[in-house]
């Protein structure tokens, strides 16, 4: 609920010192009073003066030189160098220079894909958009899909075949491969092993099977560092067979997330968020769904919850058990000491009250028991078949990956492996520490590694073979519901790379078959009857194979396990591992967009940290940005501390995927490696963690130092009930001055008037919009040192505020782009008219006119303007040039920039419509953020036309303008957030 602004000294002091009803704190540093913060208070010139060369700018040295030469070119009095045009020799079909083309394909993340359309400018894939027809996307995209295009152009990708670091030709490799595996065939090939990432691609699976049939003794191991190991185990418990499960939140009234961050990350998140938001903010918002979140770390989903209960990992299991008992899962008895009984009763009543319309979803990283119990509850509550769907596993071959990897390791140890073919994954980096994969790997005669990067594994293998990026070659993959997409290439391979398919094919058949041929061949057999050509064209064009979703199954529930549920012991501090929301298991570590993308809750960039609750931190006497040594049963790693409000006590969460040693210029050395603590017996949670403080400070680059609202009405929110009583609470709270009070008459806009509405109820803090904006608008990455210096360049940021008790605060998300104020303060103070208003009410920013006084930024109350303090734009790396959007100016040093409402898109559509002599239709222009948003929290359009979606939203009584009292008259307005707490459950609402 909003808090009214303080209006005298006394209450201001109170508010900032934290005695006014709810407890506020200024920033966590201050809360924890770390010496580092104290120092920051007093010293004005600490060691890290902002301009000293950081990673990014160190490698930018050449660019600086280039830039300073370039400066000459920027000044008025020199001519630009002659430019050359290279026309096609034979023009390809339907390529119109100056107009992009869109191709359907899918982005596979750990084998689970999201259907996308990829924008291509004269053969350069530049931007990924969602595929509206694809079930996993529905037009939206995840963070990873958006960032995947940068992976393609990653200058640190493996570029050539090499043996022990020496360059080899593809032919040499073929020969070597034959020679090494040919002798094995005699012995049935049991000394030949293939290790892959999780494989869902039918064709690839088929290829592997073909190889296996040629080497009957050979074994195929799969390992994915952050894969759904315990989900599978849980399914085995519950059903006695591996089962894949997904959920239909559009049908769910009550959702209980047991340590699950289903809205922001994990397979299907994009779709889940979409369905969830529609049930939450659909129609007249009279029937909102309700979300309970019980979790062991602060996540976006938790922050979104109507009720959030922070429990340690093991407590969550106990909680699940008590809940099972409460909803009447046969055989399950409540644990001796029920934690938070009022929660159990409230939630169980709610769930039982909504039989068939509830969802109990476990976190993929949680224990098998919790998964089993969730299955059981969903079954008992009759949700299965309605809100919960079971199918066969997505994987071609579902195996216990840990066991499989253990087997491989033991065989390597005993020297039973001659040839090991590692395709994808990165076991040397992310295999459980107790496996000691690295040293055993050296016992293998020939190790062949096919992968995108020359990473930890590649450097330990004899052969290193570059893999093709999914945008470079043909293939296929499955979505969360099993829907198959045929991947089509958008660009020829940038490097001399070998796709899996061709590699495996060359083992069983004479080499030379293209991936295209292989994929076609597979589907020719499996497409079923009918005209294959048509089928093929349609499938490729649509980006999915119609009706390829896996059929739903209803496996009988087993409850034999119910009796022997042991209450997991907890001693000391629990260590919880989670896949990183952005880097996943570390495979995206070299993606600078993801590295610099602020983490959902902490807004950290370029680092991971061990998350501790304020209380635990105080007990350990550690503060933010201090270094500690984590000691988990003898294994130690040095980590930096981040105090996370909402983190349960005696529990430390760390994200996997950081601290890479061979990742590339961006990923190497960023953060610390959590895998070093991770053992096969405690994959996701290890107890008995010792934390020892080291006297070392380690600056963490966060983009938001202050996470309290200081009692200002920045985010208006109310409960559903309050909203029913007073539908106009938002408009009443906003302090928009009356028009007649202003000195000057209002400017009136005929024709189009572009505006945006952002629905705070829908936003789930997934940050897809931020990356989308970065990709669309050629926004540079600045590097950790510059983020520390408060110079991050994101045009769009998601402010995350906490309110209430630091132990379990309520979180608020607020995406903040340029507000495009009608009475823009920034324009008034620009001395050179570099920013001013367009006839359609856009707050134009003219980079080429900007002289860089930065006055506009000072005068922007929303601080959404970004300045190129140094040469942030990468001018030398050829690959990154390929990614640039040709419709957006590439800004150089010394100019201001900011969100433009994607004016390039507006203009293109505008011109198109005028050529056709018509008006722009509603929704025809989509901003990049809007298009990416899974929950349609962002709606953009012409507000002069009252039939438009955006105009209707702005007409809602929830609509309010940020800082309206300043009379800037923003074109971007917000819809106040509504929550739906359970009246039965008083606490935390």
């Amino acid at each position, binding site marked *: 609920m909003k808090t009214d602004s303080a209006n005298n000294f006394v209450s201001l002091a109170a508010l900032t010192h934290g005695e006014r009803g709810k407890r506020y704190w200024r920033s966590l540093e201050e809360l924890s009073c770390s010496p580092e913060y104290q120092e920051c208070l007093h010293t004005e010139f600490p060691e890290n003066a902002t301009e000293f060369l950081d990673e990014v700018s160190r490698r930018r040295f050449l660019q600086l030189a280039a830039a300073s030469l370039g400066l000459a070119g920027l000044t*008025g*009095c020199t*001519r*630009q160098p*002659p*430019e*050359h*045009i*290279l*026309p*096609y*020799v*034979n*023009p390809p079909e339907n390529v*119109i*220079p*100056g*107009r992009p083309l869109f191709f359907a394909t899918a982005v596979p993340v750990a084998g689970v894909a999201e259907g996308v359309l990829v924008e291509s400018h004269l053969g350069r894939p530049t931007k990924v958009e969602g595929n509206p027809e694809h079930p996993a996307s529905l037009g939206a995209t995840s963070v990873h899909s958006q960032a995947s295009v940068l992976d393609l152009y990653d200058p640190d990708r493996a570029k050539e075949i090499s043996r022990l670091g020496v360059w080899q030709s593809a032919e040499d490799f073929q020969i070597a491969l034959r020679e090494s595996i040919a002798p094995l065939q005699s012995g049935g090939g049991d000394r030949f092993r293939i290790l892959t990432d999780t494989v869902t691609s039918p064709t690839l699976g088929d290829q592997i099977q073909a190889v296996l049939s040629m080497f009957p003794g050979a074994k195929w191991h799969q390992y994915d560092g952050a894969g759904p190991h315990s989900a599978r185990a849980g399914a085995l418990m519950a059903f006695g067979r591996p089962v894949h499960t997904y959920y239909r939140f559009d049908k769910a009234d009550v959702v209980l997330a047991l340590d699950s961050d289903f809205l922001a990350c994990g397979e299907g998140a994009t779709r889940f968020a979409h369905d969830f938001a529609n049930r939450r903010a659909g129609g007249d918002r009279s029937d909102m769904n309700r979300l309970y979140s019980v979790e062991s770390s602060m996540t976006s989903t938790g922050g979104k919850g109507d009720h959030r209960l922070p429990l340690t990992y093991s407590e969550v299991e106990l909680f699940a058990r008590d809940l099972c008992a409460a909803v009447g899962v046969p055989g399950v008895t409540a644990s001796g000491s029920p934690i938070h009984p009022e929660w159990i009763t409230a939630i169980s009543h709610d769930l039982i009250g909504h039989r068939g319309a509830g969802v109990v979803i476990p976190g993929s990283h949680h224990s098998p028991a919790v998964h089993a119990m969730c299955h059981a509850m969903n079954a008992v509550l009759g949700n299965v078949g309605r809100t919960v769907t079971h199918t066969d596993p997505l994987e071609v071959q579902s195996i216990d990956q840990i066991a499989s990897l253990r087997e491989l390791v033991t065989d390597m140890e005993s020297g039973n492996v001659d040839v090991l073919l590692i395709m994808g994954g990165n076991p040397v980096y992310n295999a459980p520490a107790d496996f000691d994969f690295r040293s055993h790997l050296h016992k293998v005669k020939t190790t062949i590694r096919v992968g995108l990067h020359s990473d930890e594994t590649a450097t330990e293998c004899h052969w290193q073979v570059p893999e093709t990026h999914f945008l470079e070659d043909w293939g296929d993959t499955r979505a969360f519901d099993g829907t198959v997409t045929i991947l089509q290439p958008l660009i020829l391979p940038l490097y001399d790379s070998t796709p899996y398919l061709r590699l495996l094919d060359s083992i069983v058949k004479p080499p030379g078959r293209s991936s295209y041929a292989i994929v076609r061949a597979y589907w020719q057999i499996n497409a079923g009857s009918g005209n294959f050509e048509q089928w093929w064209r349609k499938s490729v064009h649509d980006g999915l194979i119609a009706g390829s979703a896996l059929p739903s199954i209803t496996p009988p529930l087993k409850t034999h396990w119910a009796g022997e549920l042991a209450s997991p012991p907890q001693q000391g501090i629990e260590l919880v591992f989670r896949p990183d929301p952005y880097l996943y298991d570390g495979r995206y570590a070299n993606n600078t967009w993801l590295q610099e993308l602020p983490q959902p809750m902490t807004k950290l960039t370029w680092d991971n940290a061990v998350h501790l609750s304020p209380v635990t931190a105080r007990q350990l006497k550690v503060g933010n940005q201090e270094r500690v040594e984590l000691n988990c049963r003898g294994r130690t790693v040095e980590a930096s501390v981040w105090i996370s409000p909402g983190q349960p006590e005696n529990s430390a969460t760390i994200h996997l995927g950081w601290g890479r040693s061979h990742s590339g210029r961006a990923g190497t050395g960023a953060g610390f490696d959590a895998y070093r603590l991770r053992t096969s017996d405690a994959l996701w949670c290890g107890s008995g963690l010792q934390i020892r403080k080291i006297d070392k400070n380690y600056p963490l680059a966060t983009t938001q130092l202050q996470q309290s609202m200081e009692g200002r009405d920045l985010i208006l929110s109310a409960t559903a009930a309050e909203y029913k009583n007073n539908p106009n609470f938002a408009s009443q709270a906003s302090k928009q001055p009356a028009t007649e009070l202003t000195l000057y008459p209002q400017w009136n806009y005929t024709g189009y008037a572009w505006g945006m509405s952002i629905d705070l109820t829908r936003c789930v803090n997934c940050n897809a919009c931020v990356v989308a904006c970065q990709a669309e608008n050629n926004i540079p990455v600045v590097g950790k040192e510059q983020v520390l210096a408060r110079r991050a360049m994101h045009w769009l940021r998601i402010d995350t505020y906490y309110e209430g008790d630091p132990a379990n605060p309520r979180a608020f998300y607020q995406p903040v782009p340029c507000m495009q104020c009608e009475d823009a303060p920034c324009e008034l103070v620009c001395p050179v008219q570099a920013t*001013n*208003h*367009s*006839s*359609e009410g*856009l707050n*134009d920013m*003219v*980079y*080429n*006119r900007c002289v860089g006084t930065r006055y506009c930024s000072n005068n922007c109350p929303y601080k959404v303007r970004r300045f190129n303090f140094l040469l942030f734009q990468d001018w030398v790396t050829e690959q990154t040039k390929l990614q640039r959007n040709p*419709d*957006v*100016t*590439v800004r150089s040093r010394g100019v201001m920039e900011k969100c*433009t409402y994607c*004016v*390039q898109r507006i*203009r293109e559509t505008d*011109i198109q419509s*005028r*050529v056709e*002599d018509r008006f722009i239709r509603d929704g025809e222009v989509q901003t990049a953020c809007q298009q990416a948003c899974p929950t349609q929290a962002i709606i953009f359009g012409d507000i002069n036309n009252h039939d438009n979606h955006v105009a209707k939203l702005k007409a809602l009584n929830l609509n309010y303008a940020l800082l309206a009292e300043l009379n800037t008259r923003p074109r971007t307005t917000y819809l106040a957030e509504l929550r739906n707490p359970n009246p039965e459950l008083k606490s935390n609402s």
Partner: protein
Amino acid sequence: MPQFFPRTANSIARFSLLAMVLGIGLVAWLGAMIVRSPYETLQDVPRRQPVPFSHEHHVGGLGIDCRYCHTTVEESSFANIPPTKVCMNCHSQMWAVAPVLEPVRESYRSGKSIEWTRVHDLPQFVYFNHSIHVNKGIGCETCHGRVDRMPLMWQAQDLTMSWCLNCHRDPGMYVRPKEKVFAMGYEPPANQRQFGRELVKEYHIQSLTSCSTCHR
């Protein structure tokens, strides 16, 4: 030191004072002239090309329509430079062995593009769109001049921003009937102002002078 300065010093002093004032003015004026001069704008400077392609011959002489080569001018921002294949459509038959056309044949054989030098080269931060102009009755000639009289291509206008604005302020003075867009040597009627105004109405032309019209 009685009478240090000679009598002439007076006139010298006065003159140097005058010279200083005039000098400053002159420098300023020169600067202004230079930035507007072909030296800076490259206006009217024929560019050297790998193949001395003559618009005069092809357009003026043979009367080939602009769109035969610049195919995308009506549908895209970019007017498209013809692929080698387009040249070879004719030149595989006529002048099939002319040495001057060797680069074209070479390109066709090797598949390597011909490197044309850009004549109308706007800065990177300016986004010009051909399709909208052509579709709203702005003739090629208006910006590109009498292409049918250019043996080697040159830039007929200075392409400065103020030049763009002339038309964007008052399109009526430059617009012509759509069917005349690709015509060379079109004579605007005497009552262009009034006639233009009608066309502007008919074609729904709006004069956009917002910055984001061209700068994005």
